[in-house]
Structure formats: structure tokens, C-alpha cells
């Protein structure tokens, strides 16, 4: 294998890496993406749900080739069996305009959210980046960063047993929860058990569910400091999964154990269902690592722990981080200055936008983790579906007033974590 050189080498061809690759290539710079696996996409470590805005935000229109199912709301189930419906049937006008503008018309019904077929979605994003001028290499593992006079100057990589060098002005770490390249650059991306969900999932067929909404189940005996989800991918097909806080995981009480118990306890849903796929995964819920840029180096997506700390969704946040990273990288390359100060434009922008919301959600997560089943049941009586939407957006000021009048026993807990 010959040594290579490029302006930017991106480690990892997930949603974050491919959006960054697309945008940097579009600006005319030479991008090389290396993907460790022999196939971009599988195995998924994800429930595959995304809000339509998360796609449109990075210029991707929903496409029936990879958007498996339109989603029109959610149902939240509380420990005592009560449920709360979040209705998102109405697709906002600006979303309709964005979907139907331009030449390419979507051949699927507009929706407020989608459950994706990620193994196809990720290849689609990679193909888009390649059309924009990026180059890709699969089954290629990044081994270490190369340093010239103490400064990062590329990576060493290996493809099918052959080692080679890729010299670049910028290295982008987009290598997911199991990121190693950032660590080799001296940035700590290690997840802590207290900020990392242990996830397990079956994709199942033959389910008896409402396929138009996401189903979310809470309860400490069901999923300690986490939740169970059913994300429909078709009439009777769905991702059925669980996330529990890593520190709660132990022998006999692992994510898989809890999920199997859940499935067994609900024959009305699962009696005729079978798994067609099995997935596991770690989900960072810290809201972000300390810093995600260094001289000639940037970290995006799961590798920077950029995941919504409340619901564990990360596709939209990852793609947005890829787009912000590309913008800063392009500016830096144009000015031939890829120092930390210059690349920090990416982190600054992120901290002023997504970061503000994520900080609030982290506080909310700390509050929710303290709730007993009884507290959660009480919540079912005092909050509305709209309130829950607000909470997941990081708006919880209203909660104090609600608790003051309807559940004063929770007020001090809320003040402790949310003030």
C-alpha cells in the first residue's frame, strides 16, 4: 500500500464523518475517509430514529430508499401502566416547504420524524460525499496519529495487513464510541460508567403495535436509569431496545436481561414476534467531552460524546457536528492556518448552539435519574405530552411552577438539579 496525502483525513464513515467529508470536498479540498469495517453501516448500534429537522439541517431530504417509516408522535408509558401521547401528526409548514422545494421531490409521505434503515442510509451519505469529490477506503483501520515536531501531521493506517501513512493538514476523529484515534492524539474520550448507557436491541417482525408512533417505557425495574423503546420500521416491524446506565449493569442484570424480561412480560405485543436482528452498543450521555479540537485535529459525533443525554439519540447531533466541523476546517484550510485557535470556531459554534441545550439536558438527566417509580407515576398525572416535548428540548423552567402546585414533594429535588 502506497503512502497517501490529502488535506483532511477523516477516521470513520458514519453519519458525522460522511457529512464532514461531503462539505469539505464540496469546498474543493482533498478528503480521504477511512472506515475500519469492510462494509459501511452494519452492525447498527442505534434505534435509528431521527427528527426530520435533523436531516434537513444538514441538507438531506428524506428518501424512501433509507427512511423506513414515517413517525407522527410518541407514546410514553409510565411504571403504573398509564400512558401519555405526544401528537406530532401536523408537519410544520417550513418542513413541508423544505421537503418539497427544489427539483428532487420525496417519494414518501412527509412526517415529523423517521426511523431509518441505517445500513443503507450511511452508504447513501458516503455516496453523496464521494460525488462531492471525497475518497473512501473501507476495511482500513487508523492505527495512530503521525506527529511532526510535536504537531499532528496525519495518521498511520492498515488495510488487510498492510501498513501505510496518510499525511494530512487536518485529522478528523469520527470513529464512534470506540474512538481510538483521539486518544492517540492525547485527548481523553473514554466514557465513564456513570455517563454511558449499556444498550441492547432486537429488530423484530410480527409485532402487534401502533406503527405510527415511537413507544417509550419508563420504570426502574424495567430499565434502571434508562428506558425501553419500540421504534417502528414498518407495519409490524420495529427496533425493540433498551438502554440502562452503565453503572447499573451487572451479571444477571444486564441490558439484554432486562430487555428479554420486558418482551416476555408483554405477550399482547410480542406473542407472534421474532427477532430478525440483534444489536448491542454503548451510548455516551455525558453531553460532550471536555474539548474537541487540537492543533490540526478535530473530533465529531459519538467520538466527542455528542449524543442527546436524555433520549440517547445521536444521528442528528453527529451530522450537525460534522457540518460545523467542515465549515471551520474549510475556513482554516483557506487561510492555511489549522491551529487549535482557528479550528476552535467549530467548538465555539457548537457550544453556542447545540451545546447550550445539551448542558440543560444533562441537568435534566441527573434529575430524572433520581426519580422513583412512584415519582414517575405522579409525573404522568401532572405533565402533558407537550410538556414532555418541551423537556426533551431542554426547556424546563415551567416544571417548577407545575411541581409547586401539583407535586411539591419533588420541588426540592428539581431545585437541586435543575437550578
Amino acid at each position, binding site marked *: 500500500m502506497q503512502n497517501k496525502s490529502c488535506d483532511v483525513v477523516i477516521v470513520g464513515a458514519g453519519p458525522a464523518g460522511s457529512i464532514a467529508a461531503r462539505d469539505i470536498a464540496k469546498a474543493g479540498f482533498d478528503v480521504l475517509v477511512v472506515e*475500519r*469495517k*469492510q462494509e459501511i453501516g452494519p*452492525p447498527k*448500534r442505534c434505534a435509528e430514529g431521527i427528527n426530520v429537522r435533523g436531516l434537513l439541517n444538514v441538507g438531506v431530504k428524506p428518501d424512501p430508499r433509507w427512511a423506513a417509516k414515517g413517525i407522527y408522535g410518541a407514546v410514553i408509558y409510565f411504571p403504573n401502566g398509564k400512558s401519555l401521547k405526544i401528537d406530532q401528526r401536523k408537519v410544520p409548514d417550513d418542513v413541508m416547504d423544505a421537503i418539497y422545494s427544489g427539483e428532487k421531490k420525496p417519494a414518501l409521505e412527509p412526517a415529523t420524524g423517521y426511523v431509518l434503515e441505517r445500513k443503507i442510509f450511511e452508504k447513501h451519505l458516503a455516496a453523496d460525499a464521494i460525488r462531492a469529490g471525497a475518497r473512501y477506503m473501507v476495511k482500513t*483501520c487508523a492505527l495512530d496519529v503521525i506527529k511532526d515536531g510535536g504537531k499532528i501531521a496525519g495518521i498511520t493506517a492498515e488495510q488487510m495487513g498492510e501498513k501505510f501513512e496518510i499525511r494530512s493538514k487536518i485529522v478528523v476523529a469520527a470513529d*464512534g*464510541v*470506540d*474512538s*481510538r484515534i483521539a*486518544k492517540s492524539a492525547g485527548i481523553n*474520550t*473514554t*466514557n*465513564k*460508567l456513570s455517563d*454511558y448507557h*449499556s*444498550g*441492547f436491541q432486537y429488530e423484530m417482525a410480527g409485532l402487534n403495535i401502533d406503527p405510527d408512533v415511537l413507544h417509550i417505557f419508563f420504570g426502574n425495574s424495567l430499565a434502571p436509569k434508562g428506558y425501553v423503546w419500540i421504534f417502528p420500521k414498518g407495519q409490524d416491524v420495529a427496533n425493540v431496545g433498551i438502554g440502562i446506565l*452503565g453503572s447499573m*449493569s*451487572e*451479571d444477571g442484570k*444486564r*441490558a*439484554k*436481561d432486562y430487555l428479554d424480561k420486558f418482551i416476555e412480560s408483554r405477550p399482547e405485543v410480542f406473542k407472534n414476534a421474532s427477532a430478525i436482528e*440483534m*444489536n*448491542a*452498543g*454503548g451510548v*455516551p450521555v455525558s453531553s460532550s467531552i471536555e474539548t474537541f479540537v487540537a492543533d490540526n485535529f478535530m473530533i465529531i459525533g459519538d467520538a466527542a460524546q455528542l449524543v442527546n443525554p436524555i433520549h440517547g439519540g445521536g444521528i442528528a447531533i453527529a451530522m450537525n457536528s460534522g457540518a460545523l466541523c467542515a465549515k471551520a476546517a474549510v475556513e482554516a484550510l483557506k487561510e492555511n492556518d489549522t491551529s487549535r485557535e482557528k479550528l476552535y470556531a467549530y467548538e465555539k459554534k457548537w457550544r453556542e448552539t447545540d451545546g447550550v441545550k445539551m448542558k440543560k439536558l444533562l441537568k435534566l438527566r441527573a434529575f430524572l435519574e433520581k426519580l422513583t417509580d412512584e415519582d414517575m407515576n405522579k409525573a404522568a398525572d401532572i405533565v402533558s405530552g407537550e410538556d414532555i416535548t418541551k423537556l426533551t428540548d431542554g426547556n424546563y423552567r415551567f416544571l417548577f411552577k407545575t411541581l409547586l402546585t401539583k407535586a411539591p414533594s419533588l420541588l426540592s429535588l428539581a431545585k437541586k438539579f435543575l437550578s
Partner: protein
Amino acid sequence: MVKIPKINKDRCCYCGGCVGVCPQNAMDLRETEIRISENCTRCGVCVKFCPAGALEKDAK
């Protein structure tokens, strides 16, 4: 010498979750194989975390 922890390949779903939580950066996922380096201190964090119970701390 057998590397510690021991990986039960029949249970592993090769998600790499353990790699992301290893405080020693001693683990690596290559396709369907978890590799553990000499840096492993047997702290057991990966064993506790594994969603599928594919890691055993006290391998003989």
C-alpha cells in the same frame, strides 16, 4: 498466558461498547474481533458494562 478478561465470542455482538469504556485504552474492535492489549489492568469495567455479558473477568 490467557489474556484477561476472557471474551466469549458466542455472546459478543461486536458493538465496541467495551472499547469506549476501557480506562486503559487497552481494547480494540476489528470487524468481529475484540483485541485486548498488555495495558489491561483487569479493572473489570468492560465486564460490568457489556450489554450482552460477553466478557468474563476471572478467566482461567
